């Protein structure tokens, strides 16, 4: 590690973050050393899509397979014990990182699967599964589910589908011109009929941080369940789920420097206890007869079948690594990089979709270039070794809201340097000339 001291996530803001040697941090990511497109140094500005992995995460997976690989939670042999210990230690690390108890963390293949798990649990409860204690998850015609126009499709489509299956009605908050949630009609949207309020902590398009406290308070007033898509926040901000007070949260390892194929669903313990299972099969049961089955307590109730053990171990290591780096320091670094990225707004013909100030926003900056399609922008940047995302970033309604089909997006992570962003700005400044845009 490169910090001289350790700052825990969720520490008060007055804490002075220790000086982090960010270039040493960067040196921990082997992929960043490679070149692309005929020998150009890679400038990776697509971390909001997926982040690169530090050596400790790569080594943790290899180490698991080389030394401890075995089926977890079964078998009496030593390897099974060690594998189970590594798997459960990872759960503790992830829980600690986000301010949760280990029993409140359910492994999922990723945030998309985690969000679908909650939506299908509502479905199953509505179909009568889970009995009386699952009442909180039963939907009736006329019930409403609230989302926002800024959602990633992963936190929109599962709720649309749940509405279609149950007769519940989908409602949503709009977005202001500067890309923040428009809560001016808060009391008209979240009402006594609202049963679920699902929203993203940070938009993967605008980078805007949602006012979680306001939404949680409004949801609590009417007894609605809150579901937080924390994919973009957990890698870049100190996140304390107990302090935020949300009922559920989902996040993926691969965006927080961990492996693909694993993520987590956080659920408040009493809700997980009451929630009926979704995927059924091995490992999630108590007693199985030919007639019926009783289910294990959470989190195992929601972890049917063989789990992604090596990846979970890698996620635990990623969480610990970030924790030791200090999420306050990471957030401050992120603020500086956001300010550097936002300077593209000064380039003639470039329009940023999202807030132009660095308050309550992350270093995820989407933009359009007058007269040049996002794909073409991305291609010219790629020719200089600069990797950005182009398209709708799985948020078509938000793009429609701003009257564009596609944007280009630059996003930063712990390993991003100011020099990289300067190179990006210089390349971007040349894009319109390349296409002869007036």
């Amino acid at each position: 590690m490169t910090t001289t001291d350790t700052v825990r996530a969720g520490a008060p803001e007055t804490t002075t973050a220790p000086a982090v040697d960010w270039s040493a941090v960067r040196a921990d990511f082997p992929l960043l050393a490679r070149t692309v497109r005929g020998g150009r140094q890679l400038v990776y500005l697509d971390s909001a899509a997926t982040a690169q992995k530090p050596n400790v995460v790569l080594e943790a997976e290899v180490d698991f397979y080389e030394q401890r690989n075995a089926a977890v939670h079964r078998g009496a042999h030593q390897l099974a014990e060690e594998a189970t210990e590594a798997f459960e230690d990872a759960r503790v690390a992830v829980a600690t990182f986000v301010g949760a108890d280990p029993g409140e963390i359910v492994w999922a293949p990723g945030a998309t699967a985690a969000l679908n798990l909650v939506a299908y649990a509502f479905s199953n409860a509505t179909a009568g599964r889970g009995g009386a204690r699952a009442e909180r998850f039963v939907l009736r015609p006329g019930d409403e589910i609230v989302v926002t126009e800024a959602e990633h499709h992963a936190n929109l489509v599962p709720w649309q589908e749940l509405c279609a299956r149950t007769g519940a009605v989908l409602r949503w908050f709009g977005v202001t011109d500067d890309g923040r949630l428009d809560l001016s009609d808060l009391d008209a949207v979240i009402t006594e009929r609202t049963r679920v309020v699902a929203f993203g902590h940070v938009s993967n398009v605008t980078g805007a941080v949602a006012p979680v406290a306001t939404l949680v308070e409004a949801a609590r007033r009417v007894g609605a369940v809150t579901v937080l898509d924390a994919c973009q926040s957990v890698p870049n901000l100190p996140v304390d789920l107990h302090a935020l007070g949300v009922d559920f949260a989902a996040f993926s390892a691969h965006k927080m420097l961990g492996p693909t194929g694993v993520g987590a669903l956080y659920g408040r313990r009493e809700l997980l206890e009451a929630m009926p299972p979704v995927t059924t099969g091995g490992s999630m049961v108590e007693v199985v007869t030919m007639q019926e089955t009783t289910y294990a307590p959470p989190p195992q109730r929601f972890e049917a079948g063989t789990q992604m053990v090596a990846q979970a171990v890698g996620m635990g290591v990623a969480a610990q690594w970030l924790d030791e780096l200090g999420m306050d320091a990471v957030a401050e670094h992120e603020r500086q990089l956001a300010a550097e990225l936002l300077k593209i707004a000064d380039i003639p013909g470039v329009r940023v979709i999202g807030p132009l100030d660095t308050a309550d926003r992350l270093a995820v900056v989407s933009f359009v270039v007058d007269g040049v399609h996002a794909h073409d922008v991305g291609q010219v940047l790629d020719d200089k070794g600069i990797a950005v995302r182009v398209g709708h970033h799985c948020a078509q309604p938000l793009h429609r809201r701003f009257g564009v089909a596609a944007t280009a997006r630059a996003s930063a992570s712990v390993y991003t340097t100011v020099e990289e962003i300067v190179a990006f700005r210089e390349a971007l400044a040349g894009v319109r000339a390349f296409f002869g845009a007036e």
Partner: protein
Amino acid sequence: MSSLEQMYQQVILDHAKHPHGRGLVAVAGDGLAGESHQVNPTCGDEVTLRVAVAPAADGGAPTVSGVSWEGQGCSISQASTSVMTELVTGRTLDEVARLDATFHDLMASRGKGLDDEDAEDSLGDATAFTGVSQYPARIKCALLGWAALKDSLARSGALAG
């Protein structure tokens, strides 16, 4: 020429700026007509294309008598649809099917172009898209208009029998 310049050849940039056939035109007369809407879900590019097919005259074959389209997308998808419009207008349906197959072959060539010089020549300006085939993510952009043409021809009923 860099890979980027090979991809964005002047002819492509010109077609992207001044596309041919853009603006949907109502189809008149006694021929067949078909329309298709195609989307590239990865980037949201769209094209709506309308084709008119003139019936066979004097023992000849039916021909594409008009192509018009409306769309939004990157310069590659817009230019490709424009070049295709020029290329297929006035051609018989058999010729259009051959051009479609040849263009797909070109897009699968990974930047190498076609071995068959006659086939490549038949594509006219569309050979300028050889450079696009080096970029797997962009091949779909170049094929969007072609997909709309094929589908609208199918919908016109002209391919039946």
